[in-house]
């Protein structure tokens, strides 16, 4: 446990203190420089292990995110918005975001919600459609419905930063 903690610290420290830089991992397209910090995630994480367990840990969260992203790119209603966007990076940052919020031992290294949705022209109905695809992915993973809504309650207030940007 303490080893894991030390590893997490090691992983976290260079990131948490990093100045603005184009944070991307190999296999991803370059992005404009930005400062990596926890507040970028847009929500306060849950306390305790309950939510991480309800989502079947990091493996479950990764399956949900991969499925949601795949559904979104192929969706007849909102697929157009994702076309031309870095799917590898989206899967990674979305995984980090959900994992961080669900308190499943991750840090979030992506951009804030305003910056990451800039110029996408997302409408309210697009956001609702994305929620439905997320619900489908969570349902397929077997996540309890009440736990699904608890995650949505963390994501819902972000619509101010996402819609109409």
């Amino acid at each position, binding site marked *: 446990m303490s080893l894991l903690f030390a590893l997490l610290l090691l992983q976290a420290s260079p990131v948490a203190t990093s100045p603005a830089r184009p944070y991307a991992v190999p296999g991803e397209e370059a992005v404009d420089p930005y400062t990596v910090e926890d507040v970028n995630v847009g929500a306060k994480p849950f306390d305790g292990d309950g939510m991480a367990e309800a989502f079947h840990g990091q493996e479950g969260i990764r399956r949900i995110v991969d499925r949601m992203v795949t559904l979104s790119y192929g969706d007849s209603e909102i697929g157009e918005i994702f076309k031309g966007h870095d799917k590898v990076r989206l899967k990674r940052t979305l995984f980090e975001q959900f994992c961080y919020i669900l308190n499943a031992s991750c840090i979030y290294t992506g951009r804030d919600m305003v910056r990451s949705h800039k110029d996408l022209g997302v409408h*309210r109905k697009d956001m*609702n459609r994305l929620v439905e695809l997320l619900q489908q992915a969570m349902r397929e993973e077997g996540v309890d419905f*009440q736990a699904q809504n608890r995650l949505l*309650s963390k994501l819902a207030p972000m*619509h101010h930063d996402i819609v109409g940007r």
Partner: protein
Amino acid sequence: MTYRRALVFVATTLTVISPQAGFAKPLRHGGKLLLTSGISSLEGAAGGGLTPWAVIAGNETNEGIGLSVHGTLVEMTDYDYQSAGIALGFRDRLELSYAHQYFNTNDIGTALALGKDYGFSQDVIGAKWRVAGDIAYDRMPAVAVGVQYKKNNNGAVARLLGARQDEGVDYYASISKLFLSRSILLSGTARLTKANQLGLLGFGGDKNKNYTLQLEGSAAWQLSRHLVVGSEFRSKPDNLGIAREDDWFDAFAALAVTRNVTATIAYTDLGSIATVSGQRGVMLSLQTSF
């Protein structure tokens, strides 16, 4: 209670709303999340069954015009009631609604010297404006204000019972919030009204001729994406000396059968109506929305 009537009602409503099958693949669906625009209340406004919520009818978001059509049937101990209506939701902001209500006195009509199956009917035209907030997305609850103009078609008989007018206007304000973290929706409405039994027995009376403030509330728990159960309360004026009026309660289950069809069944306790107490029964409501 006549189960045949209920079956006929369900069959008829399904027939009326079945054209939606023709739009099986619309360009885009309206865009609201399932069940977030509620069902059609008795007076035509979107909300719970008994009371409006601060939501706008139809499935459209801030970019479109939504539509809902409903039929409702209540079978009580001694009476039955039907209503049908239509509501338009403009940009998820303004709602205009119309409902026609029909209340049949069955055998009580004879006892009241009105004749068996004497019916009262009423037309309700409503407007609702969502002032602020959003039921699901905002931290702030949704807030709406509304008016309902009601015209009773049996004014002479209502006056015999003690009513003062055959038409009236209700004014209300609603506040509604879906607490996603608990999957619970709470809604409250304050209403200024003179209406006796929604207005079906006229407006004002020998006991009281003025507006009174009435409180209404809904609590609902979302069990799954498609199913909500809940309970409602609606306080009522008591204006008529010979026909006591009680507060209303219900317990309901609403099922989103498809994106466009919601079916609701409720147990209702409507108390004393038109001199006869203990009016309990079942409410069925079908709604289609786009």
